[in-house]
């Protein structure tokens, strides 16, 4: 697609027309190129590896759910005056679509984990039975939390950042959304606002982490079993993850990462980058989230990402 063709397609859609086939073809081209150039890590694939089938599945799902159903194609076209800007937005959009899918797929065993932690941890105490059983902090308030969803979400946000993790590619489908300590911190923080049922705690988790109801476990397991992920040389895998991680970082995040590694204080880094300290804090959180999704590969990938940034920065 040329710049002129893009301008024409953009004008047509903004005027209320259907997106031309060439525009949709360019979207699919973007996804394929991203995969072929290692711009998307293999664990973002719904089957853990970037086969042709996985790529087709992702393209179809992304176009149907995000671009069409949610109207994101229109949103991107409005904001992208030029083809290169549109392509950059398409890359971000498909990556975000895959990350969201990763988060959703990891919620299957969350309810059990929350229930087990409430049962097994001494700092939590329960009263009542069944689905109405109320949980509280052993040394916390015993009045029921009576806020609505908005207030519940406010309490959940107030606990700060939580890192969504993945242990390794093979365990991807059944891995927990949060590490055990993080999950306990989340539940404990909620119960400081009042006693709650397990259902209310799950509701808070869903609201805070934008988790949809889990798909049937059998379907998830079948998808995991269907993985045809080969066992490539670890070195190749790590190299691809480094490229994919660099692709996922923004320019500002890369500079924050360099600053952190150089021990530059947040305030000074903000001055250097011409932004606020709040922005530095936000970017640190986004970087941590990207690395957390790498699971056990994160330390090695981070080291090599920094090597790559410093080499090119020298």
């Amino acid at each position, binding site marked *: 697609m040329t710049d002129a063709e893009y301008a024409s397609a953009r004008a047509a859609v903004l005027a209320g027309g259907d997106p031309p086939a060439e525009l949709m073809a360019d979207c699919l081209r973007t996804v394929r190129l991203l995969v072929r150039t290692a711009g998307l890590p293999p664990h973002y694939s719904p089957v853990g590896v970037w086969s042709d089938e996985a790529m087709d599945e992702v393209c179809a799902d992304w176009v149907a759910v995000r671009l069409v159903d949610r109207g994101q194609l229109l949103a991107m076209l409005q904001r*992208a005056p030029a083809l*290169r800007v549109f392509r950059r937005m398409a890359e971000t959009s498909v990556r975000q679509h895959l990350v969201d899918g990763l988060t959703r797929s990891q919620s299957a065993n969350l309810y059990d984990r929350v229930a087990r932690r409430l049962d097994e941890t001494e700092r939590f105490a329960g009263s009542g039975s069944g689905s109405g059983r109320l949980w509280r902090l052993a040394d916390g308030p015993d009045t029921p939390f009576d806020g609505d969803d908005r207030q519940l979400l406010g309490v*959940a946000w107030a606990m*700060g950042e939580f890192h969504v993790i993945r242990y390794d590619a093979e365990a991807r489908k059944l891995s927990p959304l949060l590490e055990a300590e993080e999950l306990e911190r989340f539940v404990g923080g909620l119960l400081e606002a009042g006693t709650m049922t397990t259902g209310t705690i799950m509701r808070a988790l869903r609201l805070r982490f934008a988790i949809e109801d889990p798909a049937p476990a059998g379907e998830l397991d079948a998808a995991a079993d269907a993985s045809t992920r080969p066992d490539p040389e670890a070195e190749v895998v790590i190299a691809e993850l480094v490229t994919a991680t660099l692709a996922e970082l923004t*320019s500002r995040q*890369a500079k924050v990462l360099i600053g952190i590694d150089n021990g530059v204080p947040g305030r000074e880094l903000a001055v250097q980058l011409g932004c606020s300290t709040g922005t530095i*804090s936000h970017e640190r959180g986004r970087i941590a989230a990207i690395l957390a999704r790498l699971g056990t590969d994160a330390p090695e990938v981070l080291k090599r990402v920094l090597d790559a*940034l410093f080499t*090119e*920065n020298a």
Partner: protein
Amino acid sequence: MTCPPFTELCATDASTRLGDHLSGCPRCRAIVARVDEAEPALGHAPTPSAPQPAPGPPPEPGGVWTFWAPAMDEYVVAAVLESGADEVLIMPLLGETLWASEADIALDPGVLGYAALAPVWASDRVLVEQAVETVSVLSEQHLAALTAGYDAFYAGEPVADPGGAPVLSDEDPRLGAHAALADDLRPLYSPWSLLHVAEELGPVLGQRRDEVGFELEAWSEQLDVEPRIWGAFEAGEADPYAAVPVPKLGQAVRGLGLLRSRRVVELARVSVLAHHSEETVTAAAAQARRRRGVVPPRRRDPEAARAAADHYAAALEKELGL
């Protein structure tokens, strides 16, 4: 700094074609060094230029427009809350709704065709020249909701029916996300704010020259205007009509990276109005005074000043291509 698409960084001629960007972006340099440059050559990397304004009426309250700024390669979609001759009050409409708080208003997909978030706290003014095209029109009900939200927020009152949960702690990551958004929107609002540091053009240009670090002597020499005269103009003490030729003023506006806009023209008009003076006494009267040893004060003729200001403004408007 916004980066090119990842796939452009894989082009065979990425290192040369994207050189300007790569020189300031460690992330993209690292990617170019790693990828195998297997994609077709870019040929050329178009330099973004000011878009042509859409034909038709200017922004009106209730319109949803795209807005641009010289330092941004993406447009910002925003609702127009108020409009004037040279400026517009806007509220951005974001496609990303994750960070919604009690100071945001959610718009359901029926309004724009996708779920959007109006960050009330991020509303501000832009120059009317930054409006590119209209993409939608809000219903009276939605415009009233956004306007009421704006009024409430700036009166320190809660926004009715907010789009997100309240921020209850400094640990809330939405605070950082909002700070990042504010930083990202700063280039959109800076063309307006750069032109509102003073009410005359000279002091506005002077402050901008200081910001970009140009010395008065060198800058005056570049413009071919005497430093004493340019200094007086920047200090708000000289009449540009008499002291600064219009082409030099156009050169200064462009050279300092200010947006060519009606606001610039209006500031110039005010400068002339404030400082234009003319000898209006008759020769005979002047002779009589001289005999008495009286030096007459320079007299201002409001009509002459207005005519000079209009003439100068019209010439500057033409010079700036407005």
